[in-house]
């Protein structure tokens, strides 16, 4: 009984979500306004996240480097493996997946509460009355901005993660900067980056569209805005993890 209910409500939400996406990708009424929106979203979603991502990437790069170093104390293993391991874990998982999870919390809750507040204060109704396709006007610029900007954030995170490890190597006694750099360059495959960016594009759509869905269908008052925002972060994270698994299976094997 409960199981049936769960399945039904899951399918109900998935259906409603794709119907909403259908409205989001309808031809916009006014390209000029949409362009303006995309630019302002790029600024608020993108630039606003740079500081946080920088701090997290630097520290994670440093810690991964230290931990690999402390686990690789067997003299038979070459020291350049430290840089290599830091690079691989950052390019494959840390930058695309972990940063996306963090952005799901930061950007996602922001989008859900912004759109949720517009819903309960009737601003979305006001858009509809003016004949504006509110789904497209509000959500399309966010998805587009995220697809354009989150890959850049991910590359930026990769660079800073490697830099974090490099800073550690300057002050560490166990291995040298040369070892670290050699490790960074060892067996470098461009495809790893392409793989990371492909994942990122999917994550970007999830990070913006799922919270937008929750915000758009908020009902009630201020309390419900908070609930939508929490729910959206939970579901976005789950979806990111599932997409990550599926894409890794498809792309790497």
């Amino acid at each position, binding site marked *: 009984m409960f199981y049936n209910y769960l399945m039904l409500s899951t399918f109900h939400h998935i259906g409603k979500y794709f119907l909403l996406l259908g409205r989001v990708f309808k031809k916009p009424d006014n390209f000029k306004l949409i362009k303006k929106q995309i630019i302002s979203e790029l600024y608020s979603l993108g630039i606003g996240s740079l500081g946080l991502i920088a701090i997290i990437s630097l520290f994670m790069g440093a810690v991964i480097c230290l931990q690999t170093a402390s686990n690789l104390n067997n003299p038979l293993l070459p020291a350049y493996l430290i840089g290599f391991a830091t690079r691989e874990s950052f390019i494959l998982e840390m930058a695309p997946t972990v940063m996306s999870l963090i952005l799901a919390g930061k950007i996602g809750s922001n989008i859900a509460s912004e759109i949720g507040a517009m819903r309960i*204060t009737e601003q979305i109704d006001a858009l509809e009355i003016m004949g504006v396709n509110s789904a497209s006007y509000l959500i399309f610029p966010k998805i587009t901005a995220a697809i354009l900007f989150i890959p850049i954030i991910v590359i930026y995170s990769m660079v800073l993660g490697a830099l974090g490890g490099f800073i550690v190597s300057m002050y560490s006694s166990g291995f040298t900067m040369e070892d670290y750099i050699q490790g960074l360059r060892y067996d470098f495959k461009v495809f790893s980056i392409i793989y990371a960016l492909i994942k990122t594009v999917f994550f970007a759509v999830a990070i913006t569209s799922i919270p937008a869905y929750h915000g758009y269908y908020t009902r009630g008052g201020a309390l419900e805005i908070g609930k939508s925002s929490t729910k959206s972060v939970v579901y976005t994270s789950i979806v990111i993890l599932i997409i990550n698994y599926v894409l890794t299976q498809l792309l790497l094997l």
Partner: protein
Amino acid sequence: MIEVKNVNKSFSGNQILHDVSIGFKKGEINLIIGASGSGKSVLTKCIVGLHEVDNGSIEYDGRDFTKMNFKERKGIRKEIGMLFQGSALFDSLTVEENIKFPLEMYTKKSQEEIIDRVNFCLQRVNLDNVNHLYPAELSGGMQKRVGIARAIALNPKYLFCDEPNSGLDPQTGIVIDNLIQEITEEYNITTIVVTHDMNSVMETGDHISFIYKGRKWWEGNKHEILKTDNKELCDFVYASRIMQKFRNI
């Protein structure tokens, strides 16, 4: 002229509107009154198509809104201005940008002409020097007036106001009522005002529809409303002591 015919509306099995039929006349203020929760906002939202009606029809000067597709509705919506119960100004935009919004969306006017129009609308609602403020920086009454300015920006043929003077002092309330009346007569538009304020009823009630528990219970004007013997309407009209005194005179 807007004609609502036999409209029913329910939300997941809970019927809110029961067979409502009302005609709203052009060049007049048409009031919808009723207790809180009686379905006034739902009725207005059905008329403008924010809620889909279950059955019945809604005709804008003979054009049946309920049978239209998305594109045709958009045509009608450009002729509608609406003031929402909570003003519903876009809070990320300044006052000026709020009023510019429908103009930029639908007209090919130059930026100068648009600004002229914005200033004209703001003057019309007696506001100046607020162009660059955000809605959160305005008082409730000023927000309502900006809401009206935005609603009239495109010269609507139909104007909807959901509780234009709720939450305002009686003096400002009357200013807004008079403003709506002036605009209605000046541009000869069909205006529908939702209210539960007896002050505005006595001030502007040329045509009043009383909604009781989702049904149209009574229809008439401000003179008739004082003489009515309809029990539910009397309960509504004479709820306040001052109106009771008024009745005894």
